[in-house]
């Protein structure tokens, strides 16, 4: 690959030989030992792998929460690996959507206010369009009636939907989700997965980390990490995805 034909056009992100080491007192943990892959715009990627294989580390790097030890990470036209803390924060507020396993909503804020937080740090007062967008997003995730509720008044699934709405507010390169269904039962997991599917069908790029095969089968593509390296990178056929979706609905516990 010569540099001249390296283009970011059509890619949500491009990862080139990304390495991350944690220097501890007694040892150096090499969490990522050189990972290379591309995510085209509109892709739906599930990252799998055993515990400690570096999934969260990779996702944190993609989400600009941390800086790699070496390698490149292209988001749009910028190599994020070379950015300062402030520039990273700027990217996070403008172009990253993060969904966490633990929802991570701010307890004292209402549903709308939580959705607005990334805009708050873009340094401009909220425009009317942006405010409308918040309401639209809340409606889209089905919480249009609960705009003034606080996180403690919502169920886990509802909180995670607020988090997804929040991740979309800044029109991100991609939605990054670290085990978004890890804390949810199978019914709410299904709600979230359907929401992701819908967003992906609308053209959103999604990268999620999961332990569960049923979840990974719903993605278009699965990347498996092992010991900080990419073990394999496969595409799920449409049949596999449909089958997994049908199976999930059929095996859903009956509502009492």
């Amino acid at each position, binding site marked *: 690959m010569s540099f001249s034909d390296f283009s970011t056009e059509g890619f949500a992100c491009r990862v080139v030989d990304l390495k991350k080491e944690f220097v501890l007192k007694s040892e150096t943990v090499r969490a990522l030992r050189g990972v290379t892959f591309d995510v085209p715009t509109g892709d739906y990627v599930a990252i799998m792998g055993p515990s400690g294989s570096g999934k969260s580390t990779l996702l944190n790097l993609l989400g600009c929460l941390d800086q790699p030890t070496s390698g490149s990470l292209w988001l749009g036209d910028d190599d994020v690996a070379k950015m300062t803390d402030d520039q990273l924060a700027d990217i996070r507020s403008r172009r990253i959507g993060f969904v966490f396993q633990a929802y*991570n909503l701010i307890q*004292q804020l209402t549903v709308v206010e939580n959705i607005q937080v990334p805009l708050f740090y873009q340094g401009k007062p909220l425009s009317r369009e942006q405010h409308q967008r918040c309401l639209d997003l809340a409606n889209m995730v089905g919480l249009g009636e609960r705009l003034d509720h606080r996180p403690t008044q919502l169920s886990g699934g509802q909180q995670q939907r607020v988090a997804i709405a929040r991740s979309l507010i800044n029109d991100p390169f991609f939605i990054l989700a670290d085990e978004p269904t890890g804390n949810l039962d199978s019914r709410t997991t299904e709600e979230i997965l359907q929401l992701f599917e819908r967003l992906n069908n609308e053209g959103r790029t999604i990268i999620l980390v999961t332990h569960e095969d049923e979840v990974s089968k719903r993605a278009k593509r699965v990347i498996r990490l092992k010991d900080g390296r990419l073990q394999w990178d496969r595409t799920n056929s449409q049949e596999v995805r449909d089958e997994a979706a049908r199976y999930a609905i059929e095996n859903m516990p009956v509502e009492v």
Partner: protein
Amino acid sequence: MMGNAMQYLMDISFSEVVNRVFWFFGAILAVWFVNIVINHPSAVMLGIKNLWLHPMRSILTVLGIFVGVASVIWLLAISKGIGDEVQRQIENLGADTIMIRTVKPPSEKLSSQGLTPYGLTREEYDMLSATVPTIRSAIPIREMRRQFQFKDRKLDGRLVGCTPEYAEVTKLEIDRGHFITDAENFSRDSHCVLSAKVAEKLFPYEDPIGQRIYMPENQDFYLIVGVLKPKGATAAVGGSMAAQDFSNDVYIPIRTLQQRIGDTIMTMRSGSREGEIIELNQITLRCRDVNDVKKTAELVSTALSSHEKMEDISVVVPLELLEQAKTTKYMFMVLAAMIASISLLVGGIGIMNIMLATVTERTREIGIRRALGAKRRDIIRQFLVETSVLSLTGGITGILFGLLCGPAVSAARSLANSWFEKQMMDLPAVVRTVEPSIVPESITGAFLISLAVGLIFGIYPAIRAAKMSPIEALRHE
């Protein structure tokens, strides 16, 4: 030497430099705060909202600053009030005067048989007024306790023999009639002038002018030619602790007193006769210029050095007292400010304590905000706004309460007067009558200090919050 240096510091550096430093830092802090309020109003709203989540905690923290600021203002106002009162009393003595007082010598210096004459003499008065070039006037004074009587009304008071200049130097103001004149003094008229209180006590119904009061000790009558306006006390002179009280005075020409009463005074006290032979109780010298006062005082001390052995006079220079009193006042105020600053410091520690707890408690939130795009300085600003809101609330309420100092002290005094009348009377007059005088600098100072306290004690917790990596903060439970 020390006194001079001190004086220099007090007069020039203290107020000026402190003022400038205040304004310099004050301007910086104010610009910072106004900038935040204008450019990040949402950060201010957020800060207030967060503080409102723990109202009790916030109010207690504010209370710490409130008490500090209010006590700065109160302590300074009260100490300045006391200092001003002392200064005013000394100023009433006249900064251009020198007072030479006769004092009772130690008993071993008096002979055991008979009465020993002591104190200032008329000869010395003549000598001083004739020879000291820098004085404008010299006033001889003789005073004694006497009973005054009109019809069946009696009053114990002080009889003062003096010359016309006495009224001017002592700042006595005539209400009706006239003060003693030179002519009256020269011809030794039995005329007298009453102070306001004596006139009121002896003549509640009649016009005193033209009446005669009776002094039983001398079996003598004096024609009233003038009544004075009421007058406050002045500072104590001549080693007596009590402030000079002019309220029970009756004034007569000194030559009249010399002829009709004389120098020897015998009194019956607990069965035995006691007496004194004194020509003059006091000579008040008035200098031509305030700058001559020190020189003149030295000259006078030398001229009267024969009294050193007897220890029967004391020279009081109000100007020196005034300088001492000013220095004392400033030192008093500095001390008060220091004590009050300690309470501000404690308030500041309170803020820091609460902010550290808040940072720990909100680590998770900080992580979320960082992950969603907050820069380090956004986090720092968020916490600094919170501490500023806390300390400014404390500062502003403290200032408002500080401004109530005057009314509050009068209210407290009237309460104390009605509940502990006895004990109140035992207090020195200055304490009983103190009017707090708010020092304007203490208001601006307290305001700026409270803002500074908030920022200084808030900055460490804020930096600690911002320093955390977003990932670590997110992991925090």
